C-alpha cells in the first residue's frame, strides 16, 4: 500500500457534521460562563466573611465568658480547630463534587437513562432537575443546611451519586472516579420548583 492508497483508505472514515443544536447550546451558556466567574469571586468573599465572623465570635465569647483566661483560650482554639476542619472538609468535598459535575455523568432514574435531566450545582451542593417534576437539591455536607438537615437519602463515592428523590431512585454515574473512594452521605431536598 503506497502513500496515496493509504490516504484514500483513511479518507473513507467520514466524521459526522456537528449537530445543529450544539451552536444554540453553546451560545445559550455564554452568560452562564460569565456568572460562573462572579460566583467564584462571591464564594471567596463568603469564605473570607465566614472566617472573619468565626474569629469575631471567638473573640467576643472569650471576652464575655466568666471562665479564666486559659480556659477561654482553650475553648477558642478548640472552636477554631473544629471550624477549620469543617472548612477544609467542605473544600475537599466541593472539589470532588465539582470534578464529578464537570465529567458529564450519565443520569439514570429508576434504571432508565435520562438525557433530558439537567445536572448542576456549586460547592458541596448539586442539583438535579427532572422535566415536569422539579429540581432536587442534593447536599454532600450537613453544613449546607442552616436548620436541621433532612434525613440521609443516599450516598456518593466519587464515581456514583445515588439517592432517593421522592419514590424514585436516581443514579448519576461518571466515567471517572474522584477523591479517594470515601463514601459520603447525601441529603436531598425537593422538588423545590417546576
Amino acid at each position, binding site marked *: *500500500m503506497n502513500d496515496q492508497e*493509504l490516504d484514500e*483508505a483513511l479518507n*473513507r*472514515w467520514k*466524521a459526522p457534521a456537528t449537530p445543529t443544536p450544539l451552536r444554540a447550546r*453553546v451560545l445559550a451558556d455564554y452568560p452562564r*460562563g460569565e456568572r460562573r466567574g462572579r460566583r467564584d469571586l462571591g464564594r471567596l468573599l463568603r469564605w473570607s466573611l465566614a472566617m472573619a465572623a468565626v474569629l469575631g465570635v471567638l473573640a467576643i465569647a472569650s471576652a464575655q465568658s466568666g471562665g479564666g483566661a486559659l480556659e477561654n483560650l482553650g475553648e477558642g482554639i478548640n472552636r477554631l480547630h473544629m471550624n477549620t476542619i469543617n472548612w477544609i472538609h467542605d473544600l475537599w468535598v466541593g472539589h470532588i463534587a465539582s470534578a464529578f459535575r464537570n465529567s458529564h455523568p450519565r443520569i439514570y432514574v429508576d434504571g432508565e437513562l435520562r438525557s433530558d435531566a439537567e445536572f448542576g450545582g456549586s460547592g458541596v451542593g448539586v442539583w438535579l432537575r427532572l422535566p415536569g417534576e422539579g429540581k432536587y437539591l442534593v447536599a454532600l455536607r450537613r453544613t449546607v443546611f442552616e436548620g436541621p438537615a433532612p434525613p440521609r437519602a443516599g450516598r456518593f463515592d466519587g464515581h456514583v451519586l445515588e439517592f432517593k428523590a421522592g419514590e424514585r431512585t436516581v443514579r448519576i454515574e461518571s466515567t471517572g472516579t474522584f477523591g479517594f473512594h470515601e463514601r459520603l452521605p447525601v441529603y436531598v431536598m425537593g422538588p423545590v420548583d417546576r
Partner: protein
Amino acid sequence: MISLEEFTRAYDEHHAAMFRFAYRLTGLAADAEDIVHECFMGLLRPGCGFDAQRTPLRTYLLGAVRNQAAKRFRRREDAAAEVNTPPDRRSPETQALRAEMEDSVARAVLGLPDAQREVLILAHYEQMPLAEIAAVVGIEVGAVKSRLQRARGALREVLSQYQERLP
C-alpha cells in the same frame, strides 16, 4: 472576558474542526459534542489560559479538545467497538467491502496509541502544518514527524489487507 460577538465568531469559525477532531479521538459523536461544549465554556472562565498574543485561537481550542478527550476515561477498545458507520447502500457488492473498510479505518485509527492518533488526525484529516500540530500537542516538530510516520506505518500494515480485496 471575551465578548458575545467574539465568542460567536470563535464558535462559527472553529466548531467544525473541533468536533471532527473530538469525534475521531473518541469515536463517539455524543462525546465529541460534549467536548466541544466544554471547550467553549472553558474559554469563558476567568482562569482561561488563552492568550491571543501568543497562541492562535484554533491552536488553543484544538489543544483544549485534546485535553478534554484525554480526561474522558474511555477505554480504547470500548470506543473502537462502538464505532458504527452506516453501510453505503448505493451499490451492492463492493460497497459492502468498502463499508467494512470504512469501519476498519475507524477501528485502526482508534486503535493507535494516543500520541500517534492525535498527530495523525490533525495531519491527515485536518491538514494542519507540522508546526501547528507541534503547538497543539506540545512537542517538537521532529517528534510530530516521527509519530506521524509510525502511525502511518501501523495503519498501512492493518489496512493493506482490505486494499488488496478492493477492485
